C-alpha cells in the first residue's frame, strides 16, 4: 500500500512537471495540477475495476495518494506566489501595444496560428483587433479589445508565419513570391525570414510584423475574387 502510494506520488509529480514544461497548449481551462489529476484518476479507477488479479486496495491507495497530493498542491498554490508559479505557471502577455510577442509565444510552445485560432474563438479575427491578449495559466486566452479599430467583415488570411510563406494563401490574394518580396522591401524588410506574421484580409488590409519589432498595418491591392 505504501509502495503504491509512493509510486503514485512520483508519477503525479513527474506528470505535473511535464505538463508545466509542455506549456499552455496542452491545458484547457484547468490549472496544470488539476489537469494532472484528471489524467490520473480515470486510469487509476479503471485498472483495478477491470483487472481482478489486482487487489482493489491498490487502486484505492493510488487514488488517495493523488487526492492527498492534490490537496497539498492546491493549498500551496493558494498560499504562496512562488508555489503558484511553480505549479500553475503565470499568465503570458502574447499581444501588447507593439503587436505579437513572439518570445512569449515560443516560451509557451505556441505559434502565431495557435494565437489566431484562440482569438477567433473569442470572436476576434484580426491580430490588431485587440490591444492586449493574455494566455492565462490555465491555457485560455483573455483579450482587451482595441477600440480604435473598426471591425471588418473580411477574413484575414495568414500569408507569412514565422518567416515562412503559405503559398496557397499567397495565391489566393493574387501574389507571387517575387511580388511579396517587393512589397516587403517597400516596408523596409529585406528578408522574408524576418517576418513574424503577415496577414491580409479580403479588403486588402494587412497586418505585418517583424520579429522583435512593432507591427504595421495598411492596405494593399489584392485579387479579391478568391477570398
Amino acid at each position, binding site marked *: *500500500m*505504501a*509502495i503504491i*502510494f*509512493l*509510486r503514485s506520488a*512520483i508519477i503525479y509529480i513527474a506528470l505535473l512537471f511535464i505538463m508545466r514544461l509542455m506549456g499552455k497548449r496542452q491545458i484547457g481551462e484547468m490549472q496544470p495540477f488539476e489537469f494532472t489529476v484528471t489524467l490520473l484518476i480515470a486510469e487509476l479507477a479503471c485498472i483495478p475495476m477491470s483487472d*481482478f*488479479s*489486482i*487487489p482493489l*486496495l491498490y487502486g484505492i*491507495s493510488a487514488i*488517495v*495518494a493523488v*487526492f*492527498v497530493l492534490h*490537496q*497539498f498542491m*492546491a*493549498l500551496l498554490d*493558494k*498560499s504562496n506566489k512562488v508555489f503558484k508559479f511553480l505549479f500553475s505557471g503565470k499568465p503570458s502577455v502574447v499581444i501588447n501595444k507593439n503587436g505579437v510577442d513572439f518570445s512569449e509565444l515560443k516560451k509557451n510552445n505556441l505559434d502565431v496560428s495557435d494565437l489566431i485560432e484562440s482569438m477567433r474563438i473569442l470572436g476576434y479575427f484580426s491580430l490588431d483587433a485587440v490591444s492586449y491578449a493574455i494566455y492565462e495559466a490555465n491555457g485560455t486566452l483573455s483579450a482587451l479589445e482595441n477600440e480604435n479599430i473598426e471591425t471588418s467583415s473580411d477574413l484575414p488570411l495568414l500569408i507569412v508565419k514565422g518567416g515562412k510563406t503559405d503559398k496557397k494563401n499567397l495565391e489566393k490574394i493574387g501574389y507571387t513570391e517575387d511580388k511579396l518580396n517587393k512589397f516587403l522591401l517597400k516596408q523596409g524588410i529585406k528578408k522574408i525570414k524576418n517576418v513574424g506574421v503577415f496577414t491580409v484580409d479580403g479588403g486588402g488590409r494587412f497586418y505585418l510584423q517583424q520579429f522583435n519589432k512593432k507591427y504595421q498595418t495598411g492596405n494593399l491591392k489584392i485579387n479579391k475574387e478568391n477570398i
Partner: protein
Amino acid sequence: MIKALISAILSLLVVVGASLFEQNYLKNSFGEFERAVSVTYEKTQNHTAVKEDVLSVQDLWVEKKKTLHIFIPHNDIKEVDLWVSEAVTLVENEKWEDALSKLEVVLEMVEQIPKTYSLRIENIL
C-alpha cells in the same frame, strides 16, 4: 482551506496507518506459514512426512490467503496454491525428491513475496 488541509492530513494518516498494518500483517502471515512449510520440508527430507502434514500446511495457507487477497495480487496467491497442491500428492505417493523440490519453491515464494511488497527503494522505483 483548513478543511482541505485536515482532509489531506487525515487521508495521509490513514494511508500511513494502513501501510504499517499491511507490512506487519504480511510479515506475520508469511512468517507463520514459512515455519509450517519448513517443518513439513524437514519431515519430507527425513521421509517421515505424511499426507496430513502437507494438508495441514495447505489448510493454513487457505486460511491465510482469505485475508492476503486484500493485500497482494491474486496471481501470487494462485502460484503458492498450485505448488502446495502438487506437494500434497507427491508426499502422499512418497515421491520425496519431487515433493522436496515443490516445497522448496513454496519456501522460496513465501520468502520472496513479502519482500516484493515491503517498503524498499527497489520496489518503489
